[in-house]
């Protein structure tokens, strides 16, 4: 009898053992994984002198404290997540440490040709259908060492495939959880065929507030002509999790995407979020809601790439920061020569709840077409003490006053989010965190 070699880290031996556990995968996928593994081995970790990494310090990140995902971790009972309160779901997937734990999909939805569930399983069952989408390489597998690592060793993950012309009323939900010291290399792949419509809510969680962990993931959203996707991803790992992600949507002719990102957790997050508008009249709205505290560091690189004429993209990121938290937002709007009549907008607002927090906003434009409208802006401000004072004279406590100001700050982005359960979940999660302001900080200086 063969005994499988135990996976202990990220060596060639571990990678071979990892592949051996996936012998059922299609040969083309194994080839992709092996190519990516070679690139992973050849690439260096990002250096501080690279512009994109100059504000994000990963010297404390040690990959060797983690190991490639196996298939043997048993999920403990998990909390249901924040996004689905009172929501009637079309299907649900719960994953733990990069493996699917439970999956469900309503029969009447499956019968319309919709695929939803563990990407691990579906890539085996539907390899021929999915191969062209992998071949498109929506996220560049060689972008950096993290992208290569993910492409080689992705595991678990979520697939939503909605065939041409099928419109899904009820949302789908996926929750990825991490245990202490766990690893999540999951990949999210969403494919909406021509004229299809769907909503997918995804979120992450840890089994405890202080768990350590590593997520190195990707999100690929493929929105074909005339399709409509609403996609939400809420990052709610514990404050001990390293979060590295490459996320990209490609949105074709007359298609629309509303993409909402919430970020509450992680010790350090470095996320590249990209939207490519590839066909005329495509429309994308990106909403970002971030709340950071303690010594969290969240770094987002956003990219709105207009490749075709008459497209609209509109990005609004709002962050509130307390304690010694830090955010970095670097936004780029790129307009190709072909993309005449582009209407593109990007904005980042930061609300500083402590003088020791820090937010850096670096917007950028790169425009090659001449008939376009591209605007950007960013603001950083503190809580207005006169507003706090005014509210306190009206009988509110200081915390209540600050919480109202924070809620007001986020209102503009909440107004854009068209899914009620998401607005409520984000609003409540943020209000709970602001509550801590009244407690004296144990800071020694």
């Amino acid at each position, binding site marked *: 009898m063969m005994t499988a070699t135990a996976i202990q880290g990220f060596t060639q031996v571990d990678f071979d053992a990892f592949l051996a556990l996936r012998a059922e995968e299609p040969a083309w996928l194994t080839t992709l994984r092996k190519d990516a593994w070679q690139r992973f081995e050849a690439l260096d970790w990002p250096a*501080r002198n690279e512009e994109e990494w*100059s*504000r994000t*310090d990963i*010297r*404390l990140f040690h990959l060797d404290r983690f190991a490639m995902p196996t298939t043997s971790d048993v999920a403990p009972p998990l909390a249901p997540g924040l996004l689905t309160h009172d929501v009637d779901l079309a299907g649900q997937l719960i994953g733990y440490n990069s493996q699917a734990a439970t999956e469900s999909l309503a029969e009447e939805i499956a019968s319309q040709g919709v695929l939803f569930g563990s990407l691990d399983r579906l890539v085996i069952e539907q390899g021929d259908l999915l191969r062209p989408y992998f071949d498109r390489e929506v996220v560049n597998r060689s972008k950096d060492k993290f992208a290569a690592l993910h492409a080689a060793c992705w595991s678990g993950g979520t697939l939503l495939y909605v065939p041409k012309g099928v419109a899904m009323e009820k949302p789908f939900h996926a929750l990825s959880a991490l245990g202490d010291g766990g690893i999540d290399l999951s990949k999210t792949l969403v494919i909406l065929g021509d004229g299809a419509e769907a909503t997918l809510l995804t979120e992450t969680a840890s089994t405890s507030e202080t768990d350590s962990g590593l997520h190195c993931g990707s999100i690929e959203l493929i929105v074909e002509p005339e399709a409509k996707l609403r996609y939400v991803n809420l990052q709610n790992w514990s404050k*001990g999790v390293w979060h590295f992600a490459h996320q990209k949507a490609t949105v074709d002719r007359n298609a629309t995407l509303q993409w909402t990102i919430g970020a509450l957790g992680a*010790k350090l997050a470095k996320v590249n979020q990209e939207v490519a508008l590839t066909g005329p009249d495509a429309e994308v709205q990106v909403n970002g809601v971030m709340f950071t*505290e*303690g*010594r969290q560091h969240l770094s987002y690189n956003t990219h709105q790439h207009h490749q075709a004429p008459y497209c609209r993209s509109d990005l609004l990121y709002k962050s509130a920061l307390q*304690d*010694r938290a*830090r955010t970095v937002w670097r936004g780029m709007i790129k307009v190709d020569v072909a993309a005449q009549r582009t209407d593109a907008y990007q904005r980042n607002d930061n609300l500083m709840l402590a*003088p*020791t927090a*820090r937010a*850096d906003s670096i917007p950028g434009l790169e425009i090659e077409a001449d008939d376009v409208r591209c605007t950007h802006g960013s603001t950083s401000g503190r809580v207005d003490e006169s507003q706090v004072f005014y509210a306190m004279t009206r009988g509110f406590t200081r915390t209540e006053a600050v919480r109202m100001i924070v809620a007001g700050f986020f209102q503009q982005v909440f107004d854009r989010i068209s899914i009620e359960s998401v607005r409520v979940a984000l609003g409540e999660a943020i209000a709970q965190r602001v509550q801590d302001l009244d407690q004296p*900080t*144990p*800071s*020694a*200086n």
Partner: protein
Amino acid sequence: MPDFIAVARPSDLSDPGSLLVEVEESLIVLIHAGGQFYALDDVCTHDGGPLSNGEVDVAGCTIACPRHGAKFDLATGAAKTMPATKPTLAHEVKVEEGQIWVRLSGQD
């Protein structure tokens, strides 16, 4: 309040000299200057660059950020020169039993 943690031996640092150490989940630059030991966050508040490898000025009791030259007070972390305007975090240090001990501040 966090405990003191042993991070290095006095003989690991020349005078003047500095050493980058990992304490719990923080990167701390340990500095030896004029017979004293100091500990600062390895973060320059101007643009987030690392302070380690910065030049230590014993007389002025400062370390200079290698990127754009901002100077920070070794004992308090105060920003002494442009382009930094905000302090970096200073930590308590003691030498005992042949070891240098650091107690992290600002653990929120």
